[in-house]
């Protein structure tokens, strides 16, 4: 801007000097009337006639051919942009739906897995309990058997003890007295001696 202003100012100064120079040396510059106002000249009025034709042709070509062409291009672009936007919008909608479906499927699968896990756990639990009960029952019967066997052995041992006691008594009596005691009597006495001990 500064350069421009300076240029114009310098130009004006030089012009003023130049014009002063011309004015002192070459007076008598003149101008004739304006050719535009010379309406007697057929060329001046001829402009209106030709101008009307040219303007009309210009208008018709523009309004019938050129401007609708431009409008079509602009309209096509607008439609294309809005169409693309529509496609993008529907694609986004589809994507959103797919994501929602995916999430739903994941949730369902998770719930299903949870349920499955629960049933399996319960089944295992029940099976374990059943097995435990079976083992307990078997152990109970085995314990009972063993106890019975112990009792039997004990009874048998106790029975054998009475025989041994009778024999021992008989042998003692024989050694001490030299008389063989009556076996039945010895057995009866041993029985009597053992009774309070309830062996």
């Amino acid at each position: 801007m500064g350069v421009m202003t300076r240029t114009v100012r310098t130009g004006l100064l030089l012009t003023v000097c130049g014009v002063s120079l011309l004015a002192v040396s070459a007076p008598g510059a003149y101008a004739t009337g304006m050719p535009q106002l010379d309406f007697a000249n057929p060329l001046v009025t001829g402009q209106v006639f030709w101008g009307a034709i040219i303007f009309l042709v210009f208008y018709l070509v523009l309004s019938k051919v050129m401007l609708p062409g431009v409008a079509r291009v602009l309209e096509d672009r607008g439609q294309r942009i809005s169409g693309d936007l529509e496609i993008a919008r529907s694609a986004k909608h589809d994507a959103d739906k797919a994501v929602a479906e995916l999430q739903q499927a994941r949730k369902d699968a998770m719930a299903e897995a949870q349920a499955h896990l629960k049933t399996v756990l319960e089944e295992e639990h029940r099976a374990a309990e059943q097995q435990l009960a079976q083992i307990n029952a078997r152990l109970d019967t085995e314990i009972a058997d063993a106890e019975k066997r112990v009792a039997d052995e004990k009874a048998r041992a106790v029975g054998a003890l009475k025989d041994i006691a009778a024999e021992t008594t008989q042998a003692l009596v024989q050694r001490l007295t030299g008389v063989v005691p009556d076996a039945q009597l010895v057995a009866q006495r041993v029985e009597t001696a053992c009774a309070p001990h309830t062996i």
Partner: protein
Amino acid sequence: MAGGSSINVLEQFELHPVLGGLGEALRFSQSPLYMIIAVCLVLAFLYFGMRPAAVVPGRLQAAAEVCYEFIHNMALDTIGPEGAAFFPFVFTLFFFILAGNYIGLLPFSFTFTSHIAVTLALALMVFALTVVVSFKVQGLRFFAHFMPAGASPFLAPLLIPIEILSFLSRPVSLSIRLFANMVAGHVMFDIFASFVIMLAGFGVVGDVFAIGPIAINVALMALELLVGVLQAYVFAILTCIYLREAVAH
């Protein structure tokens, strides 16, 4: 003219028949010739600009589209929804004047917008169009425009002649504004250019001083580029404003 005593700055506006006798018989001067050139340039610009019809426009197409949208927005914003019907007319008017103004800036060419006959014809065409449209849209209510709404009836004898006068002076102001601007610009060009030639007759001193008028003419060219588009815009926007009044209910 070099070193001579005459500066005939109005010589450039003189009309000469084209093609000798034929042009004289048809009243065809260089002025209609430059109208044809201007119109062809605008049409070629639009044709070659819009030929690709691309969705993503190139430079020329973008320029053509900017021109279209500029006038389209102006017509629709100023006139209203009815502006679409007048858009081609406003577009034609704007580019006819713009091309005329700009083509005249080329050396050895002619500015047809510097002729009052042309600008007055254009202004009268606009005036006639607004009057016809007014009568068509508003009928006899058109005359109500000459009495401003809300004004005191006692002022009517004063207001109505003023309004009629201002209405009738529209084509005059419209045509003289454009004509005077173009004439003034070209006269200035011619005056400063003449100074250069005349100063050349003064030897070295004159040559140095001659730089001044040349610099002025360069600056004037920038100004005239602005004036050319501004006057075309003023003509078009005033046409739009007159048409808005015409289509208003």
